[in-house]
């Protein structure tokens, strides 16, 4: 299976679920910004969740299918099309060699993921195939994809992927009637947050504003972080914070009172006070926020955040069983 990039689009990189084991050495986790969509795309082709896939931002990219493909795409940044006809997302797609696929902008979100049976083949570095652009390593030669790059899949396919391929193999585009429903994870404009350690460093009015007023996603966001515009947070405790650990989902308050939401490629430590931590389940919505989107923050407890996390993992486990059943039993 192979594709050749025709147009790379805006920042297209190879990612997986990242390298969480190296944060102690100040290596950001990296990996897919929207880990849920990435996992759904992999599941749809029978891959383990951590297989390498391609992360696209918005529409505009296109690629040529050099050899027959078993792929799936997920996410909300683009709709994959062939000759102007939409391909369905969240289900396995058999695409014969010679097809050109173009990504049409989807105004619902910003990022899409393309999985291939076996996973895209790139060198594993520090236990991950994710691109870390600032460090210049990982993914496809440590850089974003460019026109003419040739990507092929890993040789070892899972038994489930082989079975899906057998079911769908054809001389034309073919896919099953069902798709994975991601309605449990619908994009909302409410982002649930847990108060972070420096929450009470801010005055009451600021905290009330944080939890009631609308905020707007700034266009300067990238894989490291997303600035969020809105009421400025003012401090009642003006101590200097000694640099300490931060993580994806941490909302820092900069010197002038603005919010910055840290994402996949963010530094591992920081010295800005942390006002809140986005619930892990809502990082999907954050990764998909388009510039100028209006959002609201809602406070939940750390126990609730953990509960939501475990609930989602349980649903995803059930999904694995469902997909396996559809293709292994028939």
């Amino acid at each position, binding site marked *: 299976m192979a594709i050749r990039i025709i147009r790379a689009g805006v920042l297209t990189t190879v990612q997986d679920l990242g390298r969480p*084991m*190296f*944060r*102690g*050495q*100040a290596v*950001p986790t990296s990996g897919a910004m929207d880990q849920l969509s990435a996992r759904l795309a992999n599941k749809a082709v029978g891959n383990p969740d951590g297989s390498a896939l391609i992360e696209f931002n918005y529409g505009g990219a296109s690629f040529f299918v050099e050899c027959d493909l078993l792929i799936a795409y997920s996410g909300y940044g683009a709709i994959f099309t062939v000759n102007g006809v939409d391909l369905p997302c969240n289900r396995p797609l058999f695409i014969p060699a010679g097809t050109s696929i173009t990504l049409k902008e989807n105004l619902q979100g910003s990022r899409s993921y393309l999985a291939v049976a076996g996973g895209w083949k790139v060198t594993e570095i520090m236990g991950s195939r994710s691109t870390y652009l600032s460090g210049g390593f990982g993914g496809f030669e440590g850089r974003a994809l460019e026109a003419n790059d040739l990507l092929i899949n890993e040789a070892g396919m899972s038994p489930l992927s082989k079975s899906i391929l057998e079911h769908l193999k054809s001389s034309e585009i073919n896919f099953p009637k069902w798709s994975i429903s991601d309605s449990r994870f619908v994009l909302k404009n409410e982002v649930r947050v847990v108060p972070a350690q420096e929450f009470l460093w801010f005055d009451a009015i600021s905290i009330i504003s944080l939890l009631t007023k609308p905020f707007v996603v700034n266009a300067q966001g990238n894989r490291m972080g997303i600035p969020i515009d809105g009421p400025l947070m003012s401090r009642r405790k003006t101590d200097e914070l000694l*640099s300490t*650990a931060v993580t994806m989902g941490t909302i820092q308050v900069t010197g002038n009172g603005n919010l910055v939401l840290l994402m996949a490629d963010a530094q*591992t430590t920081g010295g800005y006070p942390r006002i809140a931590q986005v619930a892990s389940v809502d990082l999907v919505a954050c990764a998909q926020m388009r510039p100028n989107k209006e959002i609201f923050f809602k406070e939940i407890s750390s126990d609730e955040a953990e509960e939501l996390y475990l609930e989602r993992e349980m649903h995803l486990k059930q999904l694995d069983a469902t997909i396996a059943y559809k293709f292994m039993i028939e």
Partner: protein
Amino acid sequence: MISLQSATNSDILIYFLSEEAVSVVFGQDINEATFKRISEFNALLTCNPFIGFRTTVVAYTTLSVFYSPIEVMQSVLPGSTGFEKISAYLDLLNAEATKYYSLKQRRIEIPICYGGIFGPDLQEIATFNRLSAEEVIHLHSSAVYKVYMIGFVPGFAYMGGMDERLATPRKAQPRQAVHAGSVGIAGKQTGIYPLSIPGGWQILGRTPIHLFDINRMRPSFLEAGDEVRFKAIDEQRYYELSNLKDGHQDH
């Protein structure tokens, strides 16, 4: 906020960082005793990890512990949430920690070629501090430094211990790219660039050692808790060491 912190009578404070991490607070400011406790606790934890343990991030007064929530929930540790289970384990380990007295600190010597093409700002540092270039090199290479934490970019060590007579403000205009291995001063801090990145530190030399190398099992050369000394070497020795390491000259 009380719900976010562990309710025990131990002398550490544990708080929720995310569904996959907690932070342990050992003190309020940068000092030798806190530094030592964090180093010891970190060593103890990494030698005795709980099921689901991933990694730790050491900082000035905190140690953050990253884990897999699913594996932790499956463990038999006491508690009904992942946070409670981890807190229980860390509190227990902290009680044990008092039985361990000293930790063998890694002592590391890093060769630096000062001045010339490798240290374009050596003279500026000397002039700013009313010292000679030789005095700057002597002061910089005779101190003993402690690595408080690794942060900022992969493999970057926040080190304490620089002689304050060397303190120099950052350059007014940052450089577009500072070569990996460059040793710089910014205010009262000294540090080494592990990667070639833009930066505004005053550069006084360069080491042939790769502070961050993705080909090593442990890519970061330094780790929190290390004791570091710098050794002045000449340009010839710099190239010899570069050749020893990777078989080609490093420009």
